[in-house]
């Protein structure tokens, strides 16, 4: 049900942008006002949440790691799983951020005949997530050709490598195939398995459908309906130089593409998508496991006033003695 609702929501958003421009001629709203507002919400919201996280006390190490911590010299330490130095932590963070190492550990549990519970590897989620995120990055970087003039050489190089197979014209980008396949797999993964379907919420599907709509409309524009790239670049440059223009050649499908992105941007700081900055601030990943090497004193400890037993005994010494009770110190 939640899958259906989020699909419907995204469809409504698509229709809104399409007919908002095609029928109601709200080009300025969808091409200038909403993009600026969305970017402002994205930047301010993201900064706000990261600053809030930065102000949350994390006084102690949380070594919930999967490796042997550094101890006696003859016990082999898991240097990347349970690092005790800053360098080790950097290695663990790099593996996590660039290669999604913790997803690589994903397992599945199955009830077989018997009944017997068996565990096995499941690398598909890792592969799908990795494929999606890396192609998203490449597509994002390639899109800089619309926002930068002159186009940086690195962006052109990326497009060349991406179009390596030189299929058709405009040349087919491998990342376009991969991102659609990866997103469809990630969606299929939630829908196929009853347990995962039960756990999935509206927000889980919403991000997927938004991204599918975004990539889908882009692919449609590039390979099927075609778009006036020169006019679109005029609009894009107008946005980043703060002198917005809406050329009349820009088609409504482009506004759908842009509007879905704006929704994604504005939604980002309030959603699970904040896992992107969040991964950098995960205490179980970014703190060295050196509890046994260093004493960590909580810097936020409130100086509590204490009254020890010895002091108490001192205070009531005479009374205790008079009552004939035993005393620690005579």
């Amino acid at each position, binding site marked *: 049900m939640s899958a259906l609702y989020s699909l419907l929501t995204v469809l409504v958003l698509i229709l809104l942008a399409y007919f908002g421009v095609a029928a109601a001629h709200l080009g300025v709203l969808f091409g200038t006002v909403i993009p600026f507002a969305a970017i402002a919400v994205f930047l301010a919201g993201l900064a706000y949440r990261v600053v809030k996280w930065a102000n949350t006390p994390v006084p102690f190490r949380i070594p919930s790691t999967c490796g042997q911590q550094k101890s006696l010299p003859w016990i082999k330490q898991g240097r990347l799983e349970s690092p005790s130095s800053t360098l080790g932590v950097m290695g663990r963070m790099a593996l996590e951020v660039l290669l999604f190492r913790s997803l690589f550990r994903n397992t599945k549990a199955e009830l077989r005949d018997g009944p017997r519970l068996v565990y096995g590897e499941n690398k598909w989620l890792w592969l799908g997530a990795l494929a999606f995120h890396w192609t998203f990055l490449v597509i994002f970087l390639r899109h800089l*050709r619309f926002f930068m003039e002159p186009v940086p050489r690195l962006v*052109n190089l990326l497009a060349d490598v991406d179009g390596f197979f030189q299929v058709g*014209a405009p040349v087919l980008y491998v990342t376009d195939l991969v991102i659609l396949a990866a997103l469809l797999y990630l969606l299929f993964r939630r829908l196929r398995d009853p347990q995962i379907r039960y756990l999935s919420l509206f927000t889980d599907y919403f991000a997927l459908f938004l991204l599918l709509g975004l990539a889908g409309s882009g692919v449609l524009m590039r390979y099927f309906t*075609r778009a006036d790239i*020169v006019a679109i670049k005029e609009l894009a440059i107008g946005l980043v*130089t703060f002198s917005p223009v809406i050329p009349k*050649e820009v088609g409504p499908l482009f506004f759908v593409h842009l509007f879905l992105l704006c929704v994604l941007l504005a939604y980002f700081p309030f959603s699970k998508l904040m896992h992107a900055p969040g991964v950098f601030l995960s205490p179980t990943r970014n*703190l060295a496991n050196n509890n046994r090497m260093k004493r960590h004193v909580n810097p936020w400890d409130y100086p509590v006033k204490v009254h020890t037993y010895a002091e108490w005994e001192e205070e009531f010494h005479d009374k205790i003695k008079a009552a004939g009770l035993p005393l620690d110190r005579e």
Partner: protein
Amino acid sequence: MRDRGLIFTGLVLFLGLITFPVWYNLASGTSSKPPELKLPTTEKQCVAPTETMRMSHMEMLITWRDQVVRQNDRTYVAADGKRYDMSLTNTCLKCHDNKAEFCDKCHDYAGVKPYCWDCHIDPKLVQRSKG
């Protein structure tokens, strides 16, 4: 841990990177004006309506290539009944004789590098190298 300095550095770095196009365009003095193209002076009309050409000339070129190389069909009949030889160099570049100021200029702006010229020639360059 007291890692606030590190976190704020990361945040500022991210904000700087994500707004990079703004600084880049500011530094190179970019305006939103698209490039001025040198249009043919002798002819008035392209092989298809200008709008179609702007958006879909690459699709047309690939269709032409397939027609020539696979069907041995070299004539293109335009919407207005005019006949053209389906040829990249002999047709497109006959009217658009200044490739550098037309095709290349627009492609540089749009960030596309067609690989066609690995094999196909720009007659102007050939003339120049002949002396």
